[in-house]
């Protein structure tokens, strides 16, 4: 049924410009535009914008592809990178170990969780979330292997919380130097590429509830449970971060019936 009088929405005007309008609305929109000069002017402005954008950038796809983007070359580069990354990890361990040694007194002196461990965790967050090629050592696809390996190194059972229900998938994880031995580091990614990390290390301190720490661009919620500290870091959106940290907290809680069937 054609209804000439049905009003045309702004979405339909955009769809008209972009060739996304269903065929059975085409005539109605054209009729509408003939009777509404203001909308017709908007439509032609949008078309002109599209033309300017194409005129400015279309030529780039016609340029020869630079040598550094050739696939064969990238494959070779990729292999070299893997070796370089291995060297970088070893260097990070050595440096981290030294810093840990010299920083030991401070850490042991004042066991202010909010200052030291969360700083480590947030530094690691900042360092690795921007990493394109090697954000993690073990990918999330090998989650079982990852948690087994980290648990072994940490000396306690570290589980990777399942945050799929709130839209986050496990990217993977890595081992880091912690305040007293190793620290486990898990990275999650949201639907639009935003990343959250969970840092965990042994920490002899009384149990705490979720606590918040804000460091400008990023923020963290941290807590201690059964001598294990956890820090969930991410973009400084307090409500969302709290929801994510709460979900991890609930799943990682040591008491209560074991949820993990693994």
């Amino acid at each position, binding site marked *: 049924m054609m209804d000439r009088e049905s009003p045309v929405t*702004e*979405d339909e005007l*955009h*769809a008209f410009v*972009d060739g*996304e309008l269903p065929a059975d609305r085409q005539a109605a929109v054209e009729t509408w535009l003939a009777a509404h000069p203001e909308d017709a002017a*908007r439509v032609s*402005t*949008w078309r002109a*914008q*599209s033309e*300017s*954008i*194409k*005129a*400015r*950038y*279309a030529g*780039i*796809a*016609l*340029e020869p*592809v*630079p040598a*550094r*983007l050739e*696939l064969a070359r*990238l*494959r070779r*580069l*990729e292999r070299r*990178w893997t070796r370089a990354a291995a060297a970088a990890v070893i260097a990070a361990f050595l440096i981290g170990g030294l810093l840990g040694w010299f920083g030991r007194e401070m850490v042991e002196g004042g066991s202010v969780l909010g200052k030291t461990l969360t700083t480590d965790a947030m530094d690691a967050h*900042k360092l690795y*979330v*921007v990493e*394109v*090629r090697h954000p993690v050592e073990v990918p999330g*696809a090998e989650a079982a292997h990852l948690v087994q390996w980290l648990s072994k190194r940490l000396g306690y059972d570290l589980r990777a919380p399942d945050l799929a229900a709130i839209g986050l998938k496990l990217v993977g994880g890595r081992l880091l130097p912690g305040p007293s031995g190793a620290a486990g580091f898990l990275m999650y990614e949201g*639907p*639009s*590429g*935003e*990343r959250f990390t969970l840092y965990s290390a042994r920490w002899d301190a009384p149990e705490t509830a979720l606590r918040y720490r804000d460091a*400008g*661009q990023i923020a963290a919620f941290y807590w201690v449970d059964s001598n294990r500290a956890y820090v969930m870091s991410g*973009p400084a959106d307090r409500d969302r971060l709290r929801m994510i940290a709460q979900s991890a907290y609930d799943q990682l809680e040591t008491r209560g019936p074991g949820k993990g069937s693994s």
Partner: protein
Amino acid sequence: MSAFAKDLEATIPALRRYARALTRDAEIADDLVQDTLVRALRSQHLFHGGDVRSWLYTILTNLNRNRLRSLARRPALSPLGDADAPQMAGPEAGGRDIERALAALVEDQRSALLLVVLEGLSYREVAEVQGVPIGTVMSRLARARAQIRSYLDGERPALRRVK
């Protein structure tokens, strides 16, 4: 060469075009394309059919978002591409105008507009690339177009009547 590698190769020119328009910097754009290709090669085993092109646009869009986020930590380097950056006034002709108008957009709006207008993706494909519902894509598109319009209209009134 595998079908996957062929599709990958065939998409490189379009990826370069999109990356250039997104970042407005030839060097950064090719860096992004390179990172996108490397990531695609690495996660080839995770790709279960579907449209290679959309998948590559998704990777590139996310990598650029991560890049902007890391820039945002260094405020001195961030004015370009920042929605809050003051619009540089002054008349300039040709493609520069549209370039600046694009630069003044919020990243998600710029990306939505470019994917539709320049790359010819359907609304549905853009929704998948951006990981949002189609309605969100529509509103990003509408806001981008309205803002470009007022940006391009706005430079002239700034010059009139000083007294």
